[in-house]
C-alpha cells in the first residue's frame, strides 16, 4: 500500500487545464524526484497534493484516505508538510517564530524539535531571533525546510529547493536530505536542478505540459531520454 499516491489527477486554473491525468506513488521511507521545465505542471502537482488546489477526493490518496478535496490545513494535520516554492517565510516573524509556527496544526513529540533542527542547520541557532528577511537565500531555504520538519511529517513536499541559490549552497542543503529520510519522513522533491535531484532520489518522474512523460530509477534513465522528456522537441 503506497504511503501517498495520485490517480488520474486533473487540475484546472479557471478554464486553463494544467494537469492531464497524473499518476505518481510514494512508498514508505522513499524519496521521489519530479523534474520538468518551467510550466510543466510540477508546482500544480504539489499544490494539488498539499490541498492549496482543490481536486476530486479520490484523485489524491494518503494511505487509504482520499484527501483530494481536503483543505490545506487538514492535510497538514495528517502529516503532509510542504516547503513552498519561493520559501514563503513570514516577514513579521523571527527565524525561531517561523520554525515554531510550523507546529501550529500538528503537535507531535517526534524527533524534530527546535534543538534537532538547529543541529541540522547550525547557522540558524545564532540567527534565531533575527527577522527572517535579514537572512540570505540559502539560510531562508533552511528555515523553510526546518519549519516543515517541526511538525514531524510522514511526507515532506519540497518545491524547487534550488530556486535562486548558488550550486554550492544547494549542495549544502541537499546534505541534510539523508538525515531527514533517516528520521522517518518520505520525500517528494520537485526540482529544476536535475543533477541534484537524481543524486538523492530513489525514483524519478519527468513531466512536460501537464503529463508524466518518463519515470524510472535514476541509474537506468539515460541523459538523452531525460533531455527529450525535459525539452520535448530537440533544439
Amino acid at each position: 500500500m503506497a504511503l501517498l499516491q495520485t490517480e488520474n489527477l486533473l487540475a484546472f486554473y479557471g478554464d486553463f487545464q494544467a494537469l492531464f491525468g497524473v499518476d505518481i506513488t510514494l512508498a514508505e521511507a522513499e524519496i521521489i524526484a519530479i523534474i520538468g521545465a518551467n510550466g510543466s505542471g510540477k508546482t500544480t502537482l504539489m499544490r494539488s497534493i498539499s490541498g492549496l488546489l482543490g481536486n476530486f477526493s479520490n484523485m489524491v490518496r494518503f494511505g487509504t484516505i482520499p484527501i483530494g478535496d481536503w483543505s490545506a490545513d487538514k492535510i497538514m494535520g495528517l502529516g503532509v508538510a510542504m516547503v513552498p516554492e519561493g520559501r514563503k517565510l513570514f516577514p513579521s516573524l523571527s527565524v525561531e517564530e517561523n520554525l515554531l509556527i510550523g507546529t501550529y496544526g500538528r503537535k507531535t513529540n517526534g524527533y524534530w524539535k527546535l534543538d534537532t533542527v538547529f543541529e541540522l542547520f547550525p547557522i540558524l541557532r545564532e540567527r534565531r531571533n533575527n527577522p527572517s528577511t535579514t537572512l540570505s537565500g540559502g539560510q531562508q531555504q533552511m528555515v523553510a525546510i526546518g519549519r516543515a520538519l517541526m511538525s514531524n511529517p510522514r511526507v515532506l513536499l519540497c518545491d524547487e529547493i534550488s530556486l535562486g541559490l548558488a550550486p554550492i549552497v544547494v549542495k549544502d542543503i541537499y546534505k541534510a536530505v539523508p538525515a531527514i529520510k533517516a528520521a522517518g519522513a518520505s520525500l517528494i522533491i520537485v526540482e529544476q536542478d536535475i543533477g541534484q535531484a537524481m543524486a538523492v532520489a530513489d525514483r524519478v518522474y519527468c513531466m512536460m505540459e501537464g503529463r508524466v512523460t518518463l519515470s524510472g530509477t535514476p541509474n537506468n534513465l539515460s541523459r538523452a531520454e531525460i533531455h527529450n522528456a525535459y525539452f520535448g522537441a530537440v533544439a
Partner: protein
Amino acid sequence: MILSLKNVSKSFGALTVADDVTLDVPHGQALGVIGPNGAGKSTLFNLITGNMRADHGSIYFEGCDVTTASPMERCLAGIGRSFQIPQPFEKLTVFENLVVAATNGRNLTEAAVLDDCAEILQRTELLGRANILAGRLSLLERKRLELSRAMATQPKLLLLDEIAGGLTEGECKALIQTIRDIHLQGVTIIWIEHVLYALTSFVEQLAVLNFGKIISVGSPEQIMASKEVQEIYLGIEV
C-alpha cells in the same frame, strides 16, 4: 543604442536581485535573456519598465535618463511590455483592451486608432475574437492579447516575459512567427524565455543571467555550446 543599463543594482534586505548590471541594446536588435528560476530575470524587466526602482545605477532609453520615470511615462516614451502571467482587462472585450492601450499609449482619439487596432488583431490572429470579453480567452489567446496590447502602444522597444511558457509546440511556433513579423518592422525586442528552442530559432543575441548578474552575452550558438550555461542551466554535470 536604444537602451543602456549602467551598473544597475537592486536588493531586498540581504537578497540582491540585480547586481551591477550593465547592458547595451542597439536599435532593432532581438535579444534573448535566459537563466534558471530566481536568477532575477523578471526583476531586470521590472527595472526597465519602471515597476521597480533601481537602488543604484541608471537606465537610458534613446539617450535620455529614465531611471526615475514612472511606468506610464516609460510607456509613452516607447517601452511596451507583456506580463509573465497575462493581465488582460477581463471585463473589456479583446478589441477594447487594444483601444485602451492605443488611445492612452499614443495619446490619440478612438477613431484614429480604430484601423491600427484591427490590423494588429489580424496579425496576431485574434480578429475573430475581437468582441469576446478578455476574461473568457484561452491561455494562448491571452498571450496573444498581451502581445497585441503591447503592440497597440506602438513601442520602439518590446519586452516579452516568458510569453511562450505553457504553450504546446505548435502554438509556440505560430507565436514566434507573429513576433518575427513585429521584429521585421524595426521594433527592438528583449525576450525572457525558458522554452529554449523558441528563443534560439529567433534571437540574434542571447544574455545569460544568474544571481542577478549578467554571466555572459553572445550569439545563441556560442552560448548554448558554452560549458558554463550547460552546467548552471541544466544542472547536468557536463
